[in-house]
């Protein structure tokens, strides 16, 4: 009888333990849902908010024609409920800590990756998975470069084309053994082969160095960008290119990049960020005109306010915009770079050498490139894309307009 009683007490304890866990977090969840978080700094994305309930209006005609009976609603389609479940998951109390706990669990299981990110063998470098495009897709994409080259021949403007190797190519020795989704350099070779009406600049051997990339982000560092600059100048055959004076200066030691964001590896230390070319250039001759809203405004080379937010990489030239022009009264020649985000930290070096550097973003800019080149007296066009963006950006075809 006594044994039975103590068993009962023990089972009551188990019952209470379970109920405290689910009700405790349940109540905390409700409180948090009443006052939800907008943006996750750790994940660098907007979180799902409470969906608005919409019953919709009955639509007999639509129904007979095979469409939903409840027009404009989100209840009978089930959309409300799936949004609501996502809302609950996104607003779960201590979300960041749960995500880090999961990453830790995967680590205990000796997983070499989490959420599409490889853990480097040095224990502090992260690699986003990388996939080459299919042969057919690559042919099509390099084809746009060739078409652009032909288009600009009558304007007398040569087209240069270059791919930035993925971090997994340059730091292959840090990857887990046999990791499948990495840049093997195959696309570089194929692109070199396929480029016929433009000049291909090979950057794949230029970026060796332990500080060429951020450990927690896919971008290159200022040191990496400098190595690319040196290599580009050499391939442009520019003798004695302009050099930045002095050493790189650290501006932040708390940069957690987007690769870190997607894998929740809380134990990985943050990156340092540097600037090398000082604001305005070494002689104060460089000015920057940004077009964030389509109208020209004077902008700084480095937007230090961005160091206070999660997406610190936007510090370089202030982040994505359709067009940005750097002018240096000491420079020579006019260069247009068809850019992705890698170009933002390279542009200050290019501005040392060239009189004008125009950064043209295909994603936000729908003007005719050829027209712009002619109107602005551009002498060289460089299409510079990271291997990963080149494989995926759907805007490349705009180059042929």
């Amino acid at each position, binding site marked *: 009888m006594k044994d039975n009683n103590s*068993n*009962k007490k*023990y*089972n*009551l*304890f*188990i*019952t209470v*333990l*379970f*109920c405290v*866990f*689910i*009700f405790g*977090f*349940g109540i905390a*969840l*409700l409180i948090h849902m009443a006052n939800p978080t907008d943006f996750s700094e750790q994940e660098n994305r907007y979180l799902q908010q409470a969906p608005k309930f919409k019953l919709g209006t009955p639509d007999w005609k639509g129904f007979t024609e095979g469409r939903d009976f409840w027009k404009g609603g989100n*209840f*009978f389609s*089930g959309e409300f*409920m799936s949004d*609501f*479940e996502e809302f*609950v*998951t996104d607003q*779960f109390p201590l*979300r960041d800590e*749960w*995500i880090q*706990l*999961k*990453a830790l*669990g995967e680590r205990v*299981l*000796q*997983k*070499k*990756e989490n*959420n599409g990110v490889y853990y480097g063998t040095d224990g502090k470098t992260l690699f986003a998975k990388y996939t080459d495009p299919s042969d057919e897709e690559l042919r099509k994409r390099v084809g746009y470069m060739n078409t652009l080259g032909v288009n600009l021949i009558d304007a007398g403007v040569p087209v240069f084309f270059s791919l930035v190797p993925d971090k997994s190519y340059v730091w292959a020795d840090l990857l*887990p*053994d*046999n*990791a*499948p989704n990495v840049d093997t350099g195959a696309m570089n070779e194929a692109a070199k082969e396929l480029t016929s009406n433009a000049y291909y600049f090979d950057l794949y051997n230029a970026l060796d160095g332990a500080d060429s990339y951020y450990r927690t982000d896919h971008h290159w560092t200022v040191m990496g960008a400098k190595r690319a600059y040196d290599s580009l100048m050499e391939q442009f055959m520019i003798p004695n290119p302009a050099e930045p004076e002095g050493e790189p200066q650290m501006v932040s030691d708390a940069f957690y990049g987007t690769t870190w964001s997607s894998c*929740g590896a809380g134990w990985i230390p943050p990156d340092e960020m540097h600037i090398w070319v000082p604001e305005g250039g070494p002689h104060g001759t460089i000015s920057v005109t940004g077009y964030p809203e389509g109208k020209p405004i004077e902008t700084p080379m480095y937007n230090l306010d961005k160091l206070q937010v999660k997406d610190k990489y936007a510090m370089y030239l202030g982040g994505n915009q359709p067009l940005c022009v750097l002018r240096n009264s000491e420079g020579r020649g006019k260069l247009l770079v068809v850019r992705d985000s890698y170009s933002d930290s390279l542009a200050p070096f290019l501005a040392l050498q060239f009189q004008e550097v125009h950064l043209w973003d295909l994603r936000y800019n729908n003007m005719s490139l050829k027209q712009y080149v002619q109107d602005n007296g551009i002498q060289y066009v460089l299409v510079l894309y990271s291997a990963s963006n080149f494989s995926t950006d759907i805007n490349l075809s705009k180059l042929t307009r």
Partner: protein
Amino acid sequence: MVFSTPYFLFLYFCAVLLFYYITPLKLRNLVLLILNLIFYGWGEPVYILIMFASIGIDYTHGMLVTRCKAKGNLRGAKMAVASSVIFNLALLFFFKYWDFIAGTLEGFGLHFMPKLGLSLPIGISFYTFQTMSYTIDVYRGDARSQKNIITFGTFVTLFPQLIAGPIIKYKDLDDQLEHRVHTVDKFASGVQRFTVGLSKKVLLANAIGPLWDNYLATPAAELTTVGAWLGILAFSFQLYFDFSGYSDMAIGLGRMLGFEFLENFNYPYLSKSATEFWRRWHISLGSWFREYLYFPLGGSRVKKGRMIFNLLVVWAATGIWHGASWNFLLWGLFYFVCLVVEKLFLLKHIQKLPGWLSHIYALFLVLIGWTIFAVEDLGHMGEYFKAMFGMGAGFINSDTVYYLMNYLPILIIAVVASTPLAKNLWHKLPETARKVVLPVCLMLGLVMSTAYLVDGTYNPFLYFRF
């Protein structure tokens, strides 16, 4: 709604416990019925109508059978059972097999059945079988008809096992529907069972699943022999831990609400023959088919030829029950062949083999079976088999080495978790040690499962086809 979401565990189930236990005993079935309907309607509210139809029609048929039998009208009772079976099968046929048949006919140039493109009501294969068992049991005198439509509705819609089994026969539940005992002991054992199930689903099945997804998506030209076997091994573990995890969760949730459901899995991968496998895998389905299809056809107590025919019918039905696609039918027929061969002569010989050899034999058949089950496209299935038997892109490549190393720890855990080793060790622990370890393991299971659910990058529901 499915169990393995933060929404289910921390909001819906909390609400269930709260409303269920503050309600006086007499009204608990009503509360449960309402909560069940919310559970079912959550994904696709319109399909609640199927629930109402199912409840109404099976309730009426049960009453009809009883009334006819009371009047000595056996013919009438038989008609009522037939009508109920036809209704349930029609429901299943309409939602699950219509488009499949229409598509097949289109292949022959026949267009009189237009494709409807309806989404499959979740769990329809499970609950139509459950309600069918009701009228049949009443007719056979194995169960009394339920006069209270609320109580009957609670049976039809009971949320813990509504969408992924176990398939519960009415006769196993009828007493519990009316009088069930709610004790702390039962609740605590439900907590343990639920946590085990949740951990199986979230920490094991979801962890191994991506390995299979990777090999399913690998083009035939890159599929190596080791890779193909690794892939199907991953699928075998994923399906087992997912499915048996769901059954564990159902049994656990049931206990927390005072119900006791029958077991559905008994370490199937320990089997030493295909025959044994089916006594250990999805027990409630096998038992359903045995009782309501195989035995009525005459079972094994008939001439050999007729018995083989009976088995053919049962296994074709079992196969196609798992999904409206040719590969599932093929999978059923594969087991038909295995079981007939074993029944006719092989089993005698297998039993004489050393244990490990018969074990390898059974696992080989099971893995072949899962390949048929998991690769829906027949052409792709052929390529996959070719790779498995050395006619693919070589023996092994560096990708496969990576996946093998990456998943090795979890695969080892999965192997161990497929055996009763942990359970046996547990029972060897002294009582006091168990009392300390239990809450630690429970919290570890719940906390880690929550972490994986909140991150939630990979969390599929595998039974949308069932």
